[in-house]
């Protein structure tokens, strides 16, 4: 027993065995005190886990247990437990997980198929249906859920006692292929998943099982807006908070400081029957109220609402009608006719922390050129804080950063540099600026933009007014002549004298034809002349507020590339931890493109299912999410590189093959990328790019067009992916179906195969009978394997690969070298050997 699985798998005759572990659950009572706080009971099946409720206890090494431990004696079948608080387990919810052992033949093997104690494998496994794996899209996508049906003999009633009394649903199942002729360590995992359904008869029991990929059908888990987030408009309550990966432009924000039906004013008010006067106590009428506003007193009986005619002072205002009721020192809410500039200051960006890297200056060249110790995630166009001063980055090269403008004061070595998570913010169509108009609160569970109460004034354009405006020192009244002031301004607008020495704007309380009343007394010198007015567009509950910036940061890392995003979703969002970390790293290297992924895409929409989110990512970078041989999830990015470690598959290695072609060619590919909100029309949109393939139009004469949405941020990346779609769809795709012996048992979706078959159709390019393709479907059972191999529109033959430095020139190279390597082509003839046109159309950029 020393041969490997590979040698066993190619033998003409060999004993093939299928092994199976099934792990049902049972709740146990009737524990007997052993000694101290240790209890025991005898169990019928091998125990692998004991839980209090949903918390697993620790497995001990003997019956001398500490608190929170258990021990199973496999020789005697006795299970010992000591609860976490040393109390009687009969008073607790104690669950026990068993492991049942089955096979297609009787064997005594380790309980863990490794070094554990031997147990008896019941020869009841009738058969396991073939485990199928297939991508839901030929070239990219997510593996369709693997499934299998397990069938066990039950003619002796083995399952009668337990099929209904133990809990089987959603419990773990594993199936292996093995042979007594090889070491147990050579066994191959055929399936790992959970039981979905069970069946029973007097002759057999069966379980229908699916793997972990089914979890991708759950909705993407997102926190929802609630009253604890602030004053959230009803339209947004209980809707999901956004999750944003990568970088985003003009993302619409949600108000959490809204006015809704009104805001409580400071202080209390009093009024008398027959009077239109309202008196305030501790009130700030001049700040909080304007003519035309509606005040409401919410009393036990029907609420009382009044409309404000004028505001006289901080403690006196006049209604437009006399009161019919008396009230004293009551609180009122104000529903303003024009929004108040101290509400709608906080706007929600996303339900997580945004990327905010920090570094320090290590050298200073000039006031706009510095070197930092780590420039990771600092990019052109970023808004950074250099020791308290904000500046935009013009260029980054290595660790050198060039700013758009000089800093106000020369920075010093060790000064901190922080990238602002938000680089731009817009109040409707006007850009607002950091610190002067807004700041960002970047918490671990929510990120928000907070506007100053002068933001709208700052972004409004000044309007010069001629005429005669008399500003009087110490007075709130500005007299106007030769101009109808009502045509030029209204309450909550701002005005200043046009005198060069008078720079302060004053907020307007009311306007009539010849008089403007300010909310605060004019502090400048009395002056008559022109005026400058700012007609402000105040932020309301319905305003369009958009921001641009960097997406999710997790553990001080910017999650921006496809592989990392998929990994974050699997591990952090839906709790699948069996993910191949090395594959994620490689995927990020193959597809380092910065994504722009917003979940959900439209505000207030329900979250999509996880599968659809990953599908969107896959379509953006030609990604695939598959199971590997150990049923870990592996993320791969499809590309045409040909690993030099590939070994060739000849006719002797297979049972048979067939080849089919599918014409799915497009002359034009249009992509939508970088989603954003158009601030001029207030609607979600994308940037667009389209590519027309001259090759497909002229030679294939195809006329169909393909449209895709790809969630990439950078234009160059979007162009590359769009052109790659065109390349993959410029010729028919060939799929080769191969049936083989067990020699392909170790292959998985996304693996590449090198075929050299006597009757394979001669390939595009060198016209030999070799082909490289990628596995898009694989079916395995204990006896045989079949695979589908896709050549991605013949791109493996057509797209160049960088060669090792030591390969031969084209004219000296053999068929294998010409299959793997690219060659410099003649400028006119576009071939590496001008005496032959076989290579025409190869050595392309992929």
């Amino acid at each position, binding site marked *: 027993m020393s041969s490997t699985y590979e040698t066993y798998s190619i033998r003409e005759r060999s004993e093939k065995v299928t092994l199976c572990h099934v792990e049902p659950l049972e709740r146990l009572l009737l524990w007997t005190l052993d000694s101290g706080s240790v209890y025991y009971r005898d169990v019928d099946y091998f125990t692998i886990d004991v839980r209090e409720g949903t918390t697993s206890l620790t497995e001990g090494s003997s019956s001398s247990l500490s608190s929170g431990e258990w021990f199973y004696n496999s020789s005697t079948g006795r299970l010992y437990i000591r609860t976490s608080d040393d109390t009687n387990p009969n008073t607790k919810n104690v669950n026990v997980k068993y492991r049942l052992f089955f096979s297609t033949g009787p064997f005594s093997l380790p309980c863990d198929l490794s070094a554990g104690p031997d147990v008896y494998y019941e020869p009841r496994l009738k058969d396991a249906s073939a485990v199928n794996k297939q991508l839901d899209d030929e070239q990219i996508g997510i593996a369709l859920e693997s499934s299998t049906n397990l069938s066990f003999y039950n003619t002796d009633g083995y399952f009668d006692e337990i099929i209904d009394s133990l809990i089987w649903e959603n419990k773990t199942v594993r199936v292996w292929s093995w042979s007594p002729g090889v070491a147990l360590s050579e066994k191959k995992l055929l399936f790992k998943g959970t039981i979905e359904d069970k069946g029973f008869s007097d002759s057999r029991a069966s379980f229908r099982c699916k793997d972990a990929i089914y979890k991708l059908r759950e909705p993407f888990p997102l926190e929802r807006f609630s009253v604890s987030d602030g004053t959230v408009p009803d339209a947004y309550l209980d809707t999901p908070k956004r999750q944003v990966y990568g970088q985003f432009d003009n993302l619409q924000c949600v108000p959490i400081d809204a006015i809704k039906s009104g805001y409580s004013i400071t202080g209390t008010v009093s009024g008398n029957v027959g009077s239109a006067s309202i008196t305030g106590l501790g009130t700030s009428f001049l700040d909080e109220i304007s003519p035309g506003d509606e005040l409401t007193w919410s009393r036990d009986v029907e609420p009382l609402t009044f409309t404000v005619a004028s505001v006289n002072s901080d403690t006196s205002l006049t209604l437009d009608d006399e009161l019919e009721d008396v009230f004293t020192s009551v609180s009122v809410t104000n529903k303003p006719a024009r929004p108040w500039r101290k509400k709608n200051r906080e706007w929600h960006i996303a339900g997580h922390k945004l990327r905010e890297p920090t570094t320090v200056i290590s050298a200073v*060249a*000039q*006031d*706009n*050129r510095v070197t930092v110790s780590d420039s990771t995630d600092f990019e052109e166009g970023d808004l950074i804080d250099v020791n308290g001063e*904000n500046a*935009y980055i*013009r260029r980054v*090269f*290595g660790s*050198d950063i*060039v*700013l*758009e*403008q*000089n800093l*106000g*004061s020369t920075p010093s070595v060790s000064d901190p540099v922080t990238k602002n998570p938000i680089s731009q913010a817009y109040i409707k169509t006007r850009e607002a*600026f950091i610190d*002067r108009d807004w700041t960002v609160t970047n918490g671990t569970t929510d990120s928000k933009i907070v506007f100053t109460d002068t933001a709208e004034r700052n972004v409004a354009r000044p309007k*010069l007014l001629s005429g005669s405006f008399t500003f009087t020192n110490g007075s709130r009244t500005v007299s106007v002549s030769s101009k109808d002031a009502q045509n030029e301004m209204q309450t909550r607008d701002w005005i200043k004298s*046009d*005198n*060069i*020495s*008078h*720079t302060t704007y004053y907020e307007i309380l009311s306007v009539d034809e010849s008089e403007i009343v300010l909310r605060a007394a004019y502090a400048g*010198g009395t002056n008559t*002349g*022109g005026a400058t007015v700012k007609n402000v567009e105040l932020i309301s509950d319905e305003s369009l507020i958009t921001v641009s910036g960097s997406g999710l940061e997790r553990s001080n890392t910017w999650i921006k590339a496809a592989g990392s995003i998929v990994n974050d979703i699997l591990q952090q969002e839906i709790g699948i931890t069996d993910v191949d970390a090395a594959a994620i790293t490689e995927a990020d290297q193959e597809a380092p493109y910065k994504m722009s992924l917003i979940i959900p895409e439209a505000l207030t929409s329900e979250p999509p299912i996880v599968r659809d989110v990953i599908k969107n990512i896959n379509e953006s970078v030609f990604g695939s999410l598959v199971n590997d041989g150990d049923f870990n999830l592996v993320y791969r990015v499809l590309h045409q590189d040909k690993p030099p470690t590939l070994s060739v598959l000849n006719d002797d290695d297979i049972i048979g093959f067939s080849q089919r072609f599918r014409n799915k060619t497009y002359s034009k590919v249009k992509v939508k990328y970088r989603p954003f909100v158009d601030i001029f029309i207030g609607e979600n949109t994308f940037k667009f790019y389209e590519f027309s393939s001259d090759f497909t139009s002229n030679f294939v004469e195809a006329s169909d067009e393909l449209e895709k949405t790809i969630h990439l941020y950078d234009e160059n990346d979007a162009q590359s992916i769009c052109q790659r779609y065109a390349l993959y769809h410029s010729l028919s795709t060939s799929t080769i179906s191969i049936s083989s012996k067990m020699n392909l048992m170790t292959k998985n979706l996304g693996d590449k195969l090198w075929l050299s078959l006597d009757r394979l159709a001669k390939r595009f390019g060198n016209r030999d009978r070799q082909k490289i393709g990628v596995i898009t479907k694989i079916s395995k059972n204990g006896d045989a394997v079949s695979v589908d191999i896709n050549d991605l529109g013949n791109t493996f033959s057509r797209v*160049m*690969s*960088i*060669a*090792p*430095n030591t*390969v*031969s*020139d*084209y*004219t000296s*190279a053999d068929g294998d070298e010409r299959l793997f*390597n*690219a*060659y*410099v*082509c*003649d400028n006119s003839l576009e071939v*590496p*050997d*001008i005496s032959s046109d076989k290579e025409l159309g190869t*050595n392309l950029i992929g």
Partner: protein
Amino acid sequence: MAFSSLASSLYNVGKPVVQSIFSTLKGNQDDLNSRLLTVEGAINKIDCFNGILVNVASGVSTISGAFGIYEAQSAFTLTDAVVGIFDVSGPSWSGTLRIDVQKSSSLDFSSSVSVFTTKPSISFSSPTNYTQSSNAAFSLVNKDVGAGDFLRVDIDALPSGGVLGLIQVKVTGEAS
């Protein structure tokens, strides 16, 4: 990595597209970029306005073009703007000294735009002699000056309490 020539024999027709070609290309690109960064920092500066203004008037809304008009000979990006004061001791000052730079595509400044989001200014609530402003912020949209564009410095806020004898103005850019 220093610049190294790419031998033409490496890319003759029929040669394999080998890794060393790309290594050489990347190394050369890195080297050129590094040297360009140095050169750019050293000799790229453009002085649009750099001087002093005497006897600054008051009682008006704006003083336009006190420093004349600058016509750009080639495209560049504005990187710095400063207003400075000299000895201002004596008067009881208040208010603000502030300049603006207007950009126009022609000598007609009726449709000109400010190049700032925050104009350089010095507060005169408690002015310090021989101070320069440090608060200018350029508009990302208007900071780029094209060949043939015109720039004009305006004074749009003056402190009250006295008459400023001298002010310094400096506006610079870099070819981009």
